[in-house]
């Protein structure tokens, strides 16, 4: 039994049912029933058209369920309404499901959970484990999400940006958690799928960004599990195939001249990935891309990152000058200040700021890394 095949078919089967008028939650139940049936039947009796088979079985299950609790006349109406069999275009189906799962009426965590469940085909238990919450909690989150979108019609497309935000959230979560489901790989798989059904430069921009980050994954952590900063990473451990693919996708997207946030971020990631050594990084071009990002987002976090890039391109003093223009309560402001002061040769200030930044870090890997930086500088000063 090919689990990947089943998972790949799930979203389009689900969309067919929803489009035929099934309530989202009921449709999902029916599709699950059909999947169970497929696992039982297919090994001995494989269908010629797996998707058609699943749609037929799921729709029959949905009708059975409706028959059980609706009036006779209603039931007859439904059966009369049943559209003629025949596959709807799979691509468009899946796309609409993406929009449904990222509907603006959902909170980010609900949208993420529903996307992993409905589009990704993950089980509730797998999603719960990935997010380190009890299965019952995740089940509630998903069923609330289903209820929230139960009245939403699948007749037009929503905002692509919302879908991309949800996929990026999944990807980011995969960076920090280490569960049996690799959310990073899952985010890439779903974004690839989305890119196959929608023609949008930001979709491929996000895909390129994910691939370029993912390519450096093995080098990001040391043998002790600690964070290894970009400049110190062993570049031979970067996945050159993913880098080549990411850069290729990015170039095609950029050529269309519809720049967006994800393409600009991917361009920065590409410049890092392209440098044979940290010293050969093209910081001048990176600063230019940060300028684009500032223009596109006007985000203080982007300005903070830009200060780092300026520090590399024009020297630590220039970076500190940019930093001084920013609100010092920004997350990571202190860590950036520590880094730039070290580059400027002021080890005492740098050590103090590293320790302060460690106290403010939002995750363990970062806190440990900053604590080690402070300890390293203090040890050097004692020598």
């Amino acid at each position: 039994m090919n689990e990947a095949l089943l998972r790949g078919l799930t979203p389009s089967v689900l969309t067919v049912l929803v489009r035929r008028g099934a309530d989202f939650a009921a449709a999902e139940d029916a599709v699950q029933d059909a999947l169970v049936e497929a696992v039982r039947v297919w090994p001995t009796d494989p269908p010629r058209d797996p998707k058609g088979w699943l749609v037929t079985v799921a729709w029959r299950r949905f009708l059975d369920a409706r028959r059980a609790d609706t009036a006779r006349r209603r039931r007859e109406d439904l059966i009369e309404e049943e559209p003629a069999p025949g596959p709807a275009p799979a691509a468009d189906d899946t796309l609409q499901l993406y929009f449904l799962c990222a509907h603006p009426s959902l909170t980010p965590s609900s949208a993420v959970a529903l996307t992993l469940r409905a589009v990704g085909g993950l089980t509730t238990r797998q999603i719960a484990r990935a997010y380190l919450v009890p299965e019952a909690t995740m089940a509630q989150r998903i069923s609330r999400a289903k209820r929230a979108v139960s009245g939403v019609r699948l007749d037009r497309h929503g905002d692509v940006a919302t879908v991309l935000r949800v996929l990026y959230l999944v990807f980011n979560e995969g960076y920090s958690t280490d569960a049996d489901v690799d959310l990073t790989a899952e985010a890439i798989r779903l974004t690839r799928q989305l890119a196959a059904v929608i023609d949008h430069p930001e979709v491929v921009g996000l895909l390129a960004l994910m691939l370029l980050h993912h390519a450096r994954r093995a080098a990001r952590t040391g043998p002790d599990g600690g964070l290894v900063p970009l400049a110190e990473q062993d570049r031979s451990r970067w996945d050159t195939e993913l880098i080549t693919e990411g850069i290729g996708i990015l170039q095609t997207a950029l050529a269309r001249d519809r720049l967006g946030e994800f393409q600009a971020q991917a361009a920065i990631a590409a410049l890092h990935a392209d440098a044979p050594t940290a010293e050969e990084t093209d910081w001048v071009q990176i600063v230019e891309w940060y300028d684009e990002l500032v223009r596109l987002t006007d985000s203080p976090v982007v300005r903070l990152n830009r200060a780092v890039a300026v520090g590399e391109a024009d020297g630590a003093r220039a970076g500190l000058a940019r930093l001084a223009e920013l609100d010092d309560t920004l997350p990571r402001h202190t860590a950036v200040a520590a880094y730039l002061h070290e580059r400027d040769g002021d080890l005492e200030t740098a050590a103090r700021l590293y320790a302060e930044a460690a106290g403010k870090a939002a995750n363990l890997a970062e806190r440990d890394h900053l604590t080690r930086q402070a300890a390293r500088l203090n040890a050097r000063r004692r020598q």
Partner: protein
Amino acid sequence: MAKYLLLKHYRGAPAPVNDVPMDQWTPEEVSDHIRYMNDFADRLKETGEFVDGQALAPEGSFVRYDGEGRPPVTDGPFAETKDLIAGWMIIDVDSHERAVELAGELSAAPGAGGKPIHEWLELRPFLGEAPTITE
């Protein structure tokens, strides 16, 4: 999608507004208080924001390693002087604002006279949330 620990203190926190010890309440007031806490947890289970929660016994002790082959050293309890934690709840919410909102709601549990206790709850974020990917 960030986890927070809500800590309820016996002592150690600033004094609540409605500061009457629980054993001075009427039995109904105690029941109402407990029902409020249970309803709160049930609502969070409903919204998919509940992770776990337990009440703790007031007595506890400090334990320390005392060298190879020796039993651990224990000390305490320090019931008179030390901060004590009465119970905890872990929630998993979309934002810090939501966590503050929920902690505020829990702090409104009714106490003496059926009025909210306005007790101080400690709200601590878990480390380990997803970093934003910037390098």
